[in-house]
């Protein structure tokens, strides 16, 4: 299985989650109001304007869904900023 990790600002978090859901992932996990530094500079957790703060999220899904998610997330992050990582992971099925 693939684990896709994304950092994106709160303004565009909903768009990302919509992409995940419509791509058919079985779930996701989000950690809000994190601190980050990247091309857009330093983003603190206590910006007065909430929409600028970053969230971190990950989803675990099969390779096929992962490819479709990545294809759709790319342009979004290109336009609005953000980061995306992909790695292999074992998913405990019980």
């Amino acid at each position, binding site marked *: 299985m693939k684990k896709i990790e994304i950092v994106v600002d709160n303004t565009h978090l909903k768009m990302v989650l919509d992409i995940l859901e419509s791509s058919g992932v079985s779930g996701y996990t989000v950690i809000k109001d994190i601190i980050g530094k990247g091309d*857009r500079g330093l983003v603190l957790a206590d910006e007065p*304007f909430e929409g*600028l703060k970053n969230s971190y999220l990950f989803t675990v899904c099969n390779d096929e869904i992962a490819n479709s998610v990545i294809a759709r997330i790319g342009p979004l992050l290109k336009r609005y900023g953000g980061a995306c990582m992909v790695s292999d992971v074992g998913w405990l099925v019980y």
Partner: protein
Amino acid sequence: MHVDLILQNILNPPIMMFFLGIFAALVRSDLEIPQSLSKLFSLYLLIAIGLHGGYELSKSGISLYVVKVLALASFMAFLVPIYSFFVLRVRLDVYNAVAIAASYGSISAVTFITAVSFLDSLNLHHGGYMVAAMTLMESPAIVVGLLLLSLFARRADSEIKWGGVLKEALFNASVLLLVGTLLIGALTGEKGWKSIEPLFGGLFKGMLTFFLLDMGLIAGKRLGDVKKVGVFLIAFGVIMPIFNASLGILLAKLANFHTSDAFLFSILCASASYIAVPAAMRMSVPEANPSIYITLSLAITFPFNIAFGIPLYYSMVSLLWN
């Protein structure tokens, strides 16, 4: 402007706490105020000013004078972003010009509230309709900004999602709270207000004092970004508020406003939004750089208005009205 008016303003716990916050940020003290406390203070202040304004409205009712005030407020909310846009276009691209113009067309509730507490310390009072005026002035600049954008920007996907923008303009936290509490204050009247006055009336200035410490910390942390903003914009961040306030005062004089109302109106014209408008801009004008438009209104115009704008506009009003 008399020096005592500046002192009168600065020798107030809220303003001094604001400077203490800036100082703490500049010396990189480990003083930190968690985000949820900022929320507590800002929610409190919005609710308090709304409930109190609504209660005042329930006493005074809505006269022709009130309608005139609200009309002029709406007029300025449409006018300011338009001329600001053209001033900004001298140096900036369309996107950043739109975002900044929209911020300055809207208002900063904390600046307004600080001005109210300045009036209180002079034992002057304001009509509840001024809170309604503030509420009316929050959102038009967003709409004007996006109209300017669709006129002047040549974007590939230039169609703006008006649905989302209008929703944001009508139902953002601040507008919703102010409209809601104005209504609640007006409907529950004297009895309602009395029952909650100890929290929302008595503690008002103390809470503002606490909150301005926080705002000082936040503004102080952004002071480092000011140099990135450039001389043109720094000048804009100081001169534009003075111009907007002056125009507001002139119109208020022509329209025969009461002194306090004219002063508060000038503050509304002079102040710039750093939350509601940026939220809308980040969504619809991603090409604009938020660290420019937020730094400008938060780290330049906000402190300027708090410390110098308030006594300046007040003395302008005093001169013209007496």
